[in-house]
């Protein structure tokens, strides 16, 4: 599994990734889309990660990149296909 940019978050990331992959393949792909088994783990992982992104000044760059460009909405995608 890919490592985190923040070594101190690797353990919690691994737990979250494991949870996600299990949820994704056993539930989401089978139509159980509303369950949120990994929410608590994701919250922990995000808490750890966001701290590091902020410390390194990457958070602002991430926010900019998220806003920038052609982030299509679902509606636009549907129109296209």
């Amino acid at each position: 599994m890919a490592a985190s940019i923040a070594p101190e978050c690797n353990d919690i990331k691994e737990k979250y990734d494991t949870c996600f992959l299990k949820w994704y393949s056993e539930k989401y792909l089978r139509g159980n889309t509303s369950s949120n088994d990994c929410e608590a783990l994701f919250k922990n992982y995000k808490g750890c990660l966001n701290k590091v992104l902020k410390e390194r000044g990457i958070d602002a760059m991430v926010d900019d990149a998220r806003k920038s460009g052609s982030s299509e909405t679902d509606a636009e995608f549907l129109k296209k296909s």
Partner: protein
Amino acid sequence: MKFFENNFTYDYSFPAVSLAYFLRYPNPHSRHVLTTDVIDRYVDPKTQRLHTIRLHLKKSKVPSGILKLLPKGMGGSDSSGQSYILEKTTVDAKEGWMETESRNMEWTGILSVVEKQCYKRLPSEEGRLALDGLAVDKSSEQTSVKTTVTFRSRLGQGKLLGKKKHDTGDHEDEEPRKGFFSSLSTAGIQRTIELIGVSRTKEAVLKSKEGMNIVLERLRSGGVVGVLEDREAAFGPDGTWKRVWLQGKDRSIENDKS
């Protein structure tokens, strides 16, 4: 602006391919990918689509061909040899498609590269014909992927390296830069940079496909350890993907492992 387009078909089911996409690092063709983090992830309650935003840190350097075109001091000096990539993914499991978009977050003034992929389930003919749903052999299920990469250089268009100037607070190179751009055609430089990006991308797209295929092959052969390294305990002997596989592919695994 330049474009690169590629169409490809994986001989694997859509669930497997989408799982492999999330799992694709590390693989033997991804040694340049240093880290991967999930920035955000949620299911849209209206559409039931899964949205994921990831941040990848990759080893990279400005190609020497591009460095030659840049005024002295630009592009090399403060380059850490690493670059951040933001990846957005949307999965619609019901409709059987996944859309991805990856873009570089730095040096976008020199060259902005946006890669979009659209994965779509290609139902097998047997699957469609088996109306009773009994013993549907889905082993021929396939997933198509269309890759489009857009290259855009804005070098010399005013928005030049705003981030860098801000970072260093050093405007020493302003003067030579102006002289540099007046002596050469800005459009020509942009086109050259975009073309260098295209040629590098052809190789990268091929590599990424090979990487995906390796991850898919590991999944199919039940190589939980291979995919997740030492994490098989979390999944147990009844590996999750094995069930994903059984939905779509290679029934022999079931006999093998159960």
